[in-house]
Every structure is written in structure tokens, then in C-alpha cells.
């Protein structure tokens, strides 16, 4: 059975990502998230459990409603903070101001690290939809990950 990834996301950190998306609207927002990685018995094998404990809201240097890029300086600064706190980079998030919460072909093209989780926040139709994906760039495909909100 294929190993699943489960993300544990505190509601306050989900709210932080969504607020960042709203603040950037109508442009795309982006950022990184970090925490720790464990495993749990998933019945058909060990599932990967990612516990998110920190969110870094970064600037979209493209300043676009249809594309985002992160500044290397801000990324390295976030990584330095993760090292200090002994956290691991778990993934990145970005918003889709007017399209659904799923990876576009451009998102897939630029998903270089297959070990990361990719959270996409959709603000389309006045809603807030937050989903996480594993993206296999070389296979040009993505699969949804389980996102568990906790208080």
C-alpha cells in the first residue's frame, strides 16, 4: 500500500496562512512552513506524519495575481530560524486568488523538491479552501495529502 502523508496543522497557523493570502489579495501570497516529521501505523504500512509548528509568511517578489516567486534571501533567513529552533522545512504554501486549490501545470513544473508538501489556499468565490499536495514533478502528477486541523 502506498505510504500516505498526514499533515497536522494548528488552526492558528492555518489562520496565519489564510490571513497572509487575504492581505496579498488580489496577488498571490506565499510562504514556508516547518516543524517535525514522524511516522504512525496506517494499517497498510507506516504513514508519514508532518507536524507543522511554524509558518513563515514571505513576499511574492513577482507581485502578481497569477504567479509567485520567493526571494532566496528571505528563504535562507527562514531556514536559519528553523535551524535555530531545530525544525525541519516541511513545505511551502501559496494562494490562488481566483482559481481552485489544486496545483497548476506551472506549480508542478516548479515543484523541485518531492519531499516537501505543497499547501495551496484558494480564495475563489469568497471561500477559503486549504489543501495540501505531494507533487511528483517528473511524473507530472500530484496527489492530495490528509490535512488535519487541530486546536
Amino acid at each position, binding site marked *: 500500500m502506498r505510504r500516505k502523508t498526514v499533515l497536522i496543522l494548528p488552526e492558528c497557523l492555518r489562520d496565519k496562512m489564510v490571513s497572509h493570502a487575504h492581505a496579498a489579495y488580489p496577488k*498571490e501570497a*506565499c510562504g*514556508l512552513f516547518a516543524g517535525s516529521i514522524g511516522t504512525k501505523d496506517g494499517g497498510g504500512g507506516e504513514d508519514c506524519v508532518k507536524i507543522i509548528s511554524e509558518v513563515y509568511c514571505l513576499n511574492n517578489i*513577482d507581485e*502578481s495575481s*497569477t*504567479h*509567485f*516567486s*520567493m526571494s*532566496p*534571501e528571505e*528563504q*535562507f533567513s527562514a*531556514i536559519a530560524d528553523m*535551524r535555530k529552533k531545530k525544525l525541519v522545512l516541511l513545505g*511551502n504554501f*501559496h494562494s*490562488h486568488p481566483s*482559481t481552485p486549490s489544486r*496545483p*497548476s*501545470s*506551472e*506549480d508542478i*513544473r*516548479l*515543484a*523541485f*523538491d518531492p519531499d516537501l508538501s505543497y499547501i495551496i489556499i484558494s480564495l475563489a468565490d469568497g471561500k477559503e479552501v486549504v489543501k495540501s499536495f505531494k507533487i511528483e514533478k517528473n511524473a507530472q502528477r500530484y496527489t492530495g495529502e490528509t490535512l488535519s486541523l487541530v486546536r
Partner: protein
Amino acid sequence: MIKRFAICGIKWRNDMNVTVNGKITTVSGEINITKLLEEVKAQDPLYVTVQLNGTILKTADFEKITVKENDVVEFLYFMGGGNFLREPCGEKPC
């Protein structure tokens, strides 16, 4: 200068330790950044940004700069996305 050699003929080792993305890694001698990225199996080096001892390097300098014992290297992949294809611009594709 008198050079002394061990009777059992121990080979002069060039391996050295550098810290790569927070982990101490043994590399074979003083190698350039391009070789280092190969050794740590970084995918798509064109899309990798490297920071050496706190300084972000230009991609064009990867072949020229060598790492030394106890250097601290951080590398990360370009992070971006969107609804349409963008043409490469400047230092890195965007």
C-alpha cells in the same frame, strides 16, 4: 625538511567535513560547488540557490568556488508557481 612516512604506508587522506543543509557531510577533498551539488545529489542545479558561509553565490561562480574544511553550505530549490508559464529572467528562471 625531512618527511616521515608510516611503515604501513597509510595513504594521505583528503576527505573533509562540511556542513550541508545542517548536516555534517564528508566530501572528497576541496571540490567546487558544482561537484558538491552532485555529491549531495541535488536535482536540477540550474534551479538551486547556494549560500556559502552566509553569502549567496551566483550560479556562474559554482565552478570557480571550492568548499573548505568546516564550511557551512545551505542550498535550496527555487520556489515558485502560478497559472502560466514564465520565461526565464535574470539570474534564475522565474
